[in-house]
């Protein structure tokens, strides 16, 4: 049975005990998927699952009042966010039903757009999109374009070690084999530059930031919502000024608040309307956390996140070194 049919059957079976199930459905055009909130059996037909289902739906779990029973459909990376939320006791395991899926990567629409631009085609004119045999087949302006899926997958998928949901109550389809190793090559390449070059890089990137907070709103771990210190007047951490310092400092707040918690789902980067490579900051922190505390966010439900704990004698911190 195809994954989607199996998923629909599972949701149909569990729906009576749930207030809502969150999954993906068709968006405003054929390339975009949108979250669908399933409350009755008729809504189940709206479900879609293919490499265009990029959103991390676990971001919605913290938005509903306690006591509601919610089902959520997750890919491998999304399930890590669910684990991390559980670890921090931000959601209650009894109120969540996790529908796990296997995933072989999701498309990066930025890459699709650039691939089409190379052929002088406009992504806005795509009439239909289907995934077949490792290819994304698009009908654009009367032409048929087949893009190799491997060329348009998000960067995070190339180094993914968690193709299958790490936590699930129901699992549809067969688990995907194979584990890529994450050698942090992108980070190493970035860090080959001098400090001045790195600062200059971020100046260029952050200058484009419009402080729309889309990165924050899409982030499943950003749970402060309306109490975000970036919008607080007292204390006034970030002013309303549009200087580079404010923009960059907002991103630093975001990164530091996710240290040891970020599951690198890449939602911040996907949601960014001006394509700032925000994941780089978080990956740097993720790498250091892994080196220091041997911890990857969202992989071990029983472990306490490292920055909420301590050891009297730290294994990897040489604090008297200087």
């Amino acid at each position, binding site marked *: 049975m195809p994954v989607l049919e199996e998923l629909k059957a599972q949701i149909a079976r569990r729906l009576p005990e749930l207030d809502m199930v969150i999954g993906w459905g068709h968006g405003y055009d054929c390339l975009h998927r949108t979250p669908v909130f399933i409350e009755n059996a008729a809504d189940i037909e709206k479900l879609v699952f293919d490499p265009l289902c990029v959103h991390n739906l676990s971001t919605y779990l913290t938005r509903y009042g306690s006591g509601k029973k919610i089902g959520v459909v997750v890919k491998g990376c999304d399930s890590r966010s669910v684990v991390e939320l559980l670890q921090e006791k931000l959601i209650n395991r009894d109120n969540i039903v996790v529908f796990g899926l296997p995933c072989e990567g999701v498309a990066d629409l930025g890459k699709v757009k650039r691939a089409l631009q190379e052929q002088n085609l406009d992504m806005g004119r795509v009439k239909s999109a289907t995934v077949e045999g490792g290819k994304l087949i698009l009908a654009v302006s009367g032409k048929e374009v087949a893009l190799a899926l491997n060329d348009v997958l998000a960067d995070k998928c190339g180094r993914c070690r968690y193709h299958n949901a790490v936590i699930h109550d129901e699992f549809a389809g067969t688990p995907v084999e194979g584990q890529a190793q994450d050698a942090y090559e992108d980070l190493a390449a970035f860090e080959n530059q001098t*400090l001045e070059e*790195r600062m200059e890089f971020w*100046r260029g990137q952050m*200058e484009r930031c419009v402080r729309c907070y889309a990165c924050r709103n899409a982030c499943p771990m950003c749970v402060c919502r309306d109490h975000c210190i970036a919008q607080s007047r007292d204390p006034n951490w970030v002013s309303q000024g549009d200087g580079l*310092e404010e923009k*960059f*400092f907002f991103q630093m707040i975001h990164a530091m608040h996710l240290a040891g918690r970020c599951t690198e789902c890449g939602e911040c980067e996907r949601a960014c309307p001006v394509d700032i490579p925000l994941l780089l*900051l978080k990956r740097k922190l993720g790498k250091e956390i892994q080196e220091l505390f041997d911890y990857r966010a969202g992989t071990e439900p029983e472990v306490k996140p490292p*920055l909420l704990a301590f050891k009297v004698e730290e294994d990897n911190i040489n*604090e008297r070194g200087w």
Partner: protein
Amino acid sequence: MDKELRIVGFLCNWCSYGGADTAGVGRFIQPTDLRIIRLPCSGRIDPLFVLKTLIGGADGVLVSGCHPRDCHYSEGNYYARRRLEVLKRFLPVIGIDQGRFEYTWVSASEGQRWQHVVTTFTNQIHALGPIQRIGKDAQARACAFGRTLEVDIPA
């Protein structure tokens, strides 16, 4: 020593602030670049304090608290140690030299050690020189762009 630089020190009320006091009472000669901000505990230090200080134009930031096992609040400095170590390793990726930020432990009786810490850190910052401001060039560019807009608009 050449011109003074701006160094901000976040000191724990119970140990390091006392240590700095001891150093003063003992009349140990110290460089005068450091401005001290007194905090109840090194555990009070949000890594964002340090980032905000550096972005705000400080050339260096020093955090000093009680030695591990000596915290007035039992475990504040243990949490601080983890956060500050993560912060220290984060700085290079945004283009700030790791050496501009240090954290250390000085107890109230260690006037001598305080003198050593301040002198070493101040020398380290002087070796690195003034920090490059993040927004300075961007502001200049924005102003230049603003000026290009002031062209004669035909009536």
